[in-house]
């Protein structure tokens, strides 16, 4: 018998490779055919073409030799079919929301409606140039105006700018306005208070506005107490940045009192609105006393994440901050929409043009589809889903904070067995066919496992996911190597991130 025959027999026998014993009930992940694909540069063959252009219909023109470029060294030369197969294959190594459950906490991975994609591609919307005269872009301006108003209504703020390109960009816009407000009052406070549960963008943003960051411990309950804030508040504090519900999925229930304290101390309150999906139609940050907040259209308002963007991070403000909004602002006068550039107190602008308009179109389509009632139902069902997961996993997974969760539930890896950690659990979930939750954030939970299901997932999906989580917890006790060696089904195994950082290879070179 040849050695291969032996292997084959072994395979046929009870000692099947793990990839083939997927008899776990409801396990979605299994092993299948994947196709390898090299780098696009490795497909390049001199003289191949993937484009076509009409023949030049005017005389050719040349630049002086000093300006003229001879060649773009290294650029690929490939056919159209090469490009299509290349990126098609690459896509198959990804996992998207349309592939399955994607419970990334803090990211609100809700379903991205297809009609939004359709309307964003309408030539009249995608093809309108930002320098088109206002009277010939009333559709675009009108959409922006209506979206501004709808977001203001949802959040309880008095005005909204759509300029920022993402959440962090919105934060910077908001804190710029806070600073401009203080300065307009001759006030040069130096500090921003930020709870330890905050996302990293909060302190980074404060620093970009020249503020010193003062971290505040959130304490045992996971939420800020009014007393703590009062302790930290003084007349060098420009603002408190708070996420509500916070990154533990908990509502900051002292928020009214906290806002009062900050306001009485002469500061303003910034709301990180990343978690607005818990609150629509239920409670409004503007009504809680917050002064400024960013939205993430790519979270709460269903626009796709696109593998990291583009998003849109509109910012809502209370009355007193309106003069400081970035330029321009869309206004409606005499039945016409217009861009208002004449805003002397504006703090400036955060980017070119008016924001990620294509994303606004999608967000507006979502709001039209849902209506007020639908948005409220979305928040209710998002919270129901998170609490359902919490109820099903509590006990088996350690739950560090006991307050009622809103849109997400945060566990720790404390009760995993076999020396397994959150990372191992995350990778093992991949083998089960799931995108892992957010891990190791928020920092206040050691080995944090942050699960945000969103409202677009059904009970069946949640049940299957919970079974998988429970099964993996059992595996960690009995067969920890299944977690430690995970993922085992993906075309590449666990990647060495340390090596990547030690010797960064950031750009392909043929010699490589």
């Amino acid at each position, binding site marked *: 018998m040849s050695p291969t025959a032996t292997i084959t027999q072994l395979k046929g026998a009870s000692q099947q490779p793990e990839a083939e014993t997927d008899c776990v009930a409801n396990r979605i992940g299994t092993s299948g055919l994947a196709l390898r694909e090299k780098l696009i540069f490795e497909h390049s063959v001199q003289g191949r073409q993937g484009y076509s252009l009409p023949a030049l219909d005017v005389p050719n023109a040349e630049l002086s030799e000093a300006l003229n470029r001879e060649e773009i060294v290294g650029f690929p030369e490939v056919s159209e079919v090469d490009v299509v197969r290349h*990126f098609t294959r690459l896509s198959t190594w990804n996992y998207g929301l*349309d592939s399955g459950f994607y419970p990334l906490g803090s990211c609100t991975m809700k379903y991205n409606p297809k009609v939004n994609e359709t309307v964003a591609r309408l030539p009249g919307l995608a093809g*309108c140039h*930002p320098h088109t005269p206002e009277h010939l872009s009333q559709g675009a301006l009108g959409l922006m105006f209506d979206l501004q108003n709808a977001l203001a209504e949802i959040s309880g703020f008095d005005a909204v700018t759509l300029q920022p390109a993402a959440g962090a960009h919105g934060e910077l816009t908001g804190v710029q306005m806070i600073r401009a407000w203080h300065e307009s009052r001759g006030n040069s406070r130096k500090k921003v208070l930020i709870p330890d549960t905050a996302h990293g963008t909060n*302190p980074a943003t404060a620093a970009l506005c020249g503020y010193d960051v003062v971290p505040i411990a959130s304490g045992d309950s996971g939420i800020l107490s009014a007393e703590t804030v009062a302790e930290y508040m003084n007349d060098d504090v420009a603002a408190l940045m708070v996420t509500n519900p916070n990154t533990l999925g908990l509502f900051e229930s002292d928020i009214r009192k906290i806002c009062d304290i900050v306001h009485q101390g002469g500061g303003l309150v910034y709301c990180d609105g990343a978690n607005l999906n818990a609150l629509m139609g239920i409670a409004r940050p503007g009504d809680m006393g917050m002064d400024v907040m960013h939205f993430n259209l790519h979270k709460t308002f269903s626009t796709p994440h696109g593998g990291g963007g583009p998003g849109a991070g509109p910012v809502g403000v209370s009355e007193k901050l309106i003069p400081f909004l970035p330029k321009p602002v869309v206004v409606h006068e005499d039945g016409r929409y217009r861009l208002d550039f004449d805003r002397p107190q504006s703090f400036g602008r955060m980017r070119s043009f008016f924001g990620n*308009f294509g994303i606004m179109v999608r967000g507006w389509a979502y709001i039209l589809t849902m209506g007020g009632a639908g948005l409220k139902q979305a928040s209710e069902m998002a919270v129901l889903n998170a609490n359902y997961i919490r109820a099903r996993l509590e006990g088996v997974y350690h739950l560090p904070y006991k307050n009622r969760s809103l849109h997400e539930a945060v566990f720790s890896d404390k009760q995993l067995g076999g020396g397994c950690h959150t990372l191992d659990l995350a990778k093992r979930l991949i083998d089960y066919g799931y995108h892992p939750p957010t891990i190791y954030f928020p920092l206040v939970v050691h080995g944090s496992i942050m699960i945000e299901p969103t409202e677009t997932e059904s009970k069946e999906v949640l049940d299957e996911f919970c079974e998988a989580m429970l099964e993996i917890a059992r595996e960690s006790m009995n067969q920890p190597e299944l977690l430690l060696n995970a993922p085992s089904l993906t075309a590449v195994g666990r990647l060495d991130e340390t090596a990547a*950082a030690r010797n960064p290879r950031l750009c392909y070179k043929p010699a490589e």
Partner: protein
Amino acid sequence: MRYIPHTDEDVRQMLETIGVNSTEDLFTEIPQEVRLGRPLDLSAPMSETEVIKEMKRLAAQNATAETHSTFLGGGAYNHFIPSVIDQLISRSEFYTAYTPYQPEISQGTLQAIYEYQTLICQLTGMEVSNASMYDGASACAEAVLMAARATRRKKVLLATSLHPEYRETVATYCRHLNIELLDVPYLETGKLDQQSLASLLDKETAAVVAGYPNFFGVIEELAPLADAAHDVGALLVTAVAEPVALGKIKSPGELGADIVVGEGQSFGMPVSYGGPGVGFFAARQKTVRSMPGRLVGATRDKDGKTGYVLTLSTREQHIRREKATSNICSNQGLCVLIAAIYLSLLGKQGLKEVASQNLAKAEYAKQAISALPGFSIPFSGPTFNEFVVEVPGDVDALLLKLEERGILAGLPLKRYFAGMEQRLLVCVTEQNTREEIETLVDALKGGAA
């Protein structure tokens, strides 16, 4: 509701498992006094049919390159978009994925970013590119901050001929960081005044920032700027609002630039009323650790297979918080993919050819317009696909006359520059046929008469 799967029975069972009586009970931590005691004042839910109808109604109110002959540039450009792009970016594995935090199931996004980074390096002549910034203007602002970090200096010289919205954005980003911004004027050629530059440069200077081509479409001479900056230990930052130009003009890297930023919208993205596009950001290897934004690097798995991961994240906010090189988190992911597909399709030959066509067509238009009585080209420097025209009479009246003939003739510069009441920025790309150009010229002639 087709996006929310819960039936009444589902809700009942789930509440039972949770151990509460109603969804209302899930919100007990929200004090009544901050509750919204009324329904949201928004329109009733619309069906898909109605949403599409409403959006078409809005779309019909906008002028586009399908309804008008358009010669608008100034930071956003009408280029041909191959059909391949939309088909590929519509693959849901790409567009419905998040940032690739879990590399083993995000290799598609990661390899595409790695390829994009490489393409941007090749195009700009730089050594490292990040995984994108929001747009050209914010990338430019981040470049100024990085230059200040890298040189530990606080003075930055901005060309007056840099795109005014880039200048405003830079000013906004720098305002509270003690960075002093000084203007460098331009000459009659439309190019930056090297003498003024020399007089402003000193050992405190972190960077010189110039457009390439600049806002007037004029191609700056970068090499002397780089030399002058380097002489005092400052960095040259170049901002490329129209990167198709780089198919035809020397790369900033070759000419000595230290940081090259720009707007990538021209690479396969529709103008989309100004966004989303993609800010590209490239620099020298030695400054990589002070770069803002995400970076993708190659590595291996335990069996030695190559794979890609987000790397050097100790620069970033989620690790370094207030000490991060930037606060950016989400960037312009899908637009990075678009740029990678566009540049792969066009490739070495194609980008050169499309750039040559832009140059030739703009040149054709420029010469024809300059020959019209009353019209002139105020800047004498070489241009790529945009140029400034001085028109006779009232600009607004002229533009309205051209609109009636279905032409969007250009961007009036008076909004940005005092003293430019008579000036238009005209952009001609490969999308404008000779016939369209001739109609423009004819209409300008007639309109001014």
